[in-house]
């Protein structure tokens, strides 16, 4: 028999035309030259991968201070080039030992606009994409690991841990840096304890792991309540409550440089093992029989997802729903194969949180916390999708 060249699978149960069908497979499986592979990224059916790029630019123009798109683009490009030239100048100066000044482009716009683009909108937009994409990838991976589509990235207690860490940071110092580091540390610690419980009890079977997560999660929730109880009701208590509802309003460029590397590294790691997650998702014993070192795979997956989630949560606060719902929407579009689901979840998650954050900062004069909005928008949207499309795991 002959082997068909084009992707064979229609995803899901019904034929679909315009989604990223078999896309990753067609790009990576047959050793085509890189430039051809890149060209194949663009065709109309793959439009979903353009979504975050379009939204990225839109979000830069859009806000309570609406900017002219052309001007924004000019500020963005020229500003970036100037920053590069600046950097190069100072580098050359230090290397050569005397003052070097490279020419730079003239700044034709008001300084305030530059501030809006580079200091306020850009970090925030990038943060929304990193956090949304990261939480979605982590959620999708955990759903595969635990063989359960109702799992979210905080199943092992990372959010509760991070929440406690942040609350302690707010209580003791109030310095944003301290709060973030404390949140990150306790998020990781919570998962480590959950994993430790699972490991001691039952040979790291995923069920025991979940129970460990539940134990740790409720413990840290109690600790959070405790810190709230002792917090000053006029000062630190509102800060804690607001942090727990999630927001990107305070994100700075420094925050981005701190959390982007761990989020990207963890995500790349999950992307690399994306096909192996399929094997974990069919069951531990079967995966073992198929030659997968499930123990090592579980550890890798848990560490990568936890680093991504903890890094995201420490700058954004607790944002629910994204990590649970976005992978579902991804599955409706491209089916359960993690080869496609992981990249599609990243793209959808980044887009979703961008839109939600745009709404959060523009809808009212006071910022609406993100955690509220993700549920407020995500829940009805998800309900709508459920009624519209047949979902594989509900039968």
């Amino acid at each position: 028999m002959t082997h068909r060249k084009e992707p064979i699978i229609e995803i899901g149960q019904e034929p679909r035309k315009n989604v990223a069908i078999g896309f990753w497979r067609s790009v990576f499986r047959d050793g085509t030259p890189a430039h051809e592979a890149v060209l194949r990224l663009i065709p109309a059916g793959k439009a979903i991968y353009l979504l975050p790029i379009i939204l990225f630019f839109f979000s830069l123009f859009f806000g309570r201070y609406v900017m002219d798109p052309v001007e924004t683009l000019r500020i963005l490009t020229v500003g970036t080039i100037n920053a590069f030239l600046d950097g190069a100048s100072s580098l050359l100066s230090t290397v050569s030992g005397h003052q070097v000044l490279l020419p730079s482009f003239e700044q034709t716009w008001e300084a305030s606009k530059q501030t809006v683009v580079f200091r306020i909108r850009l970090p925030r937009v990038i943060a929304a994409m990193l956090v949304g994409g990261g939480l979605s990838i982590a959620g999708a991976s955990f759903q595969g690991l635990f063989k359960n589509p109702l799992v979210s990235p905080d199943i092992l207690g990372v959010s509760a841990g991070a929440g406690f860490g942040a609350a302690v940071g707010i209580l003791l110092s109030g310095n944003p840096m301290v709060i973030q580091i404390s949140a990150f540390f306790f998020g990781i610690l919570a998962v480590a304890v959950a994993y430790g419980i699972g490991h001691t009890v039952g040979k790291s079977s995923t069920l025991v792991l979940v129970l460990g997560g539940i134990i740790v999660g409720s413990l840290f929730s109690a600790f959070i309540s405790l810190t709230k109880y002792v917090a000053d009701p006029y000062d630190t208590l509102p800060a804690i409550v607001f942090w727990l509802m999630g927001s990107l309003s305070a994100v700075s460029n420094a925050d981005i440089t701190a959390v982007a590397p761990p989020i990207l590294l963890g995500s790349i790691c999950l992307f690399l093992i994306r096909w192996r997650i399929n094997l974990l998702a069919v069951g531990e014993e079967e995966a073992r029989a198929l030659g997968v070192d499930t123990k090592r795979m579980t550890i890798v997956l848990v560490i990568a997802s936890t680093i991504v989630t903890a890094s995201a949560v420490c700058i954004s606060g607790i944002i629910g729903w994204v990590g649970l719902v976005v992978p579902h929407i991804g599955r409706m579009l491209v089916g359960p194969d993690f080869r496609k689901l992981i990249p599609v979840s990243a793209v959808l998650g980044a887009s979703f949180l961008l839109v939600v954050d745009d709404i959060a900062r523009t809808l009212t004069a006071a910022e609406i916390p993100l955690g509220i909005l993700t549920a407020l928008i995500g829940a009805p949207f998800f309900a709508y999708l459920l009624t519209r499309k047949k979902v594989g795991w509900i039968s």
Partner: protein
Amino acid sequence: MILNVNNASFSYDGITKQFEDVSLSLRQGEILSLLGRNGTGKSTLIKCILNILRLQGGTVEIGGRRVDDMRTEEIAQQVGYVPQAHRAVFPFTALDFVLMGRAPHIATFAVPKEEDYKKAEEAFARIGITHLREKCISEMSGGESQMVMIARALAQEPSLLILDEPTSHLDIGNQTTAMATIDRLAADGIAILMCTHFPDHAFLVSHTVAILEKGRLIAQGRAEDVITKENLREAYGIDICVHYIKEAGRTVCIPMNPCGCRGGGRANTAGTKPHGT
């Protein structure tokens, strides 16, 4: 020898033995059926052979190498495993599912390549289920998903195929199809170890039969020698007729009616008088 099990013993808690002193061996193209009542340790033995569980004593050798010295993917390159049933959570298509059988031949960070797709397609064609390729496993009947799992094991290109009760969820027609498939695979040179609850099936395809009872092998050898009324009574605790049926051209095993079940069909055979009249 492809498979050699020497004096194997295993226990979950270190006190009660699931089985002990089990010795088996299997050549290329040979089928060995493992009989025994529920809970007698057949599945545990299989897991030990796959090195999912570790033996307390004795050794398992596959292709001349001890499994506890082999890496997980090395074992999977040699041994294909077909579990009793698959509980589908995510609606993978059959092709995606069978592709998973290529895992031992694919590097950790890689995804299936063209060649792997070809191998998966071959596995479908080999047992004649190419039409199922794009169907979701969550929507398949028991018979279909059993065949897809066999195809997945074949995609591993194994020299030994282990099936855990391959017919327990199948209707009588699919049971026969599955047996014919297994027979054909053995004819192609794959060694096959299968657990089964049907002594009939052992007669149908096996070269050798072993009966496990209370953690020990009570009999092992050619089907005709092992599947006897006496051995079956010891294994299952009931009386079973072993009879060659000329019309069917095979030997069958039929439990007697010791408890006087009152269903119909007792009086239909010519020459037998209805009970109690």
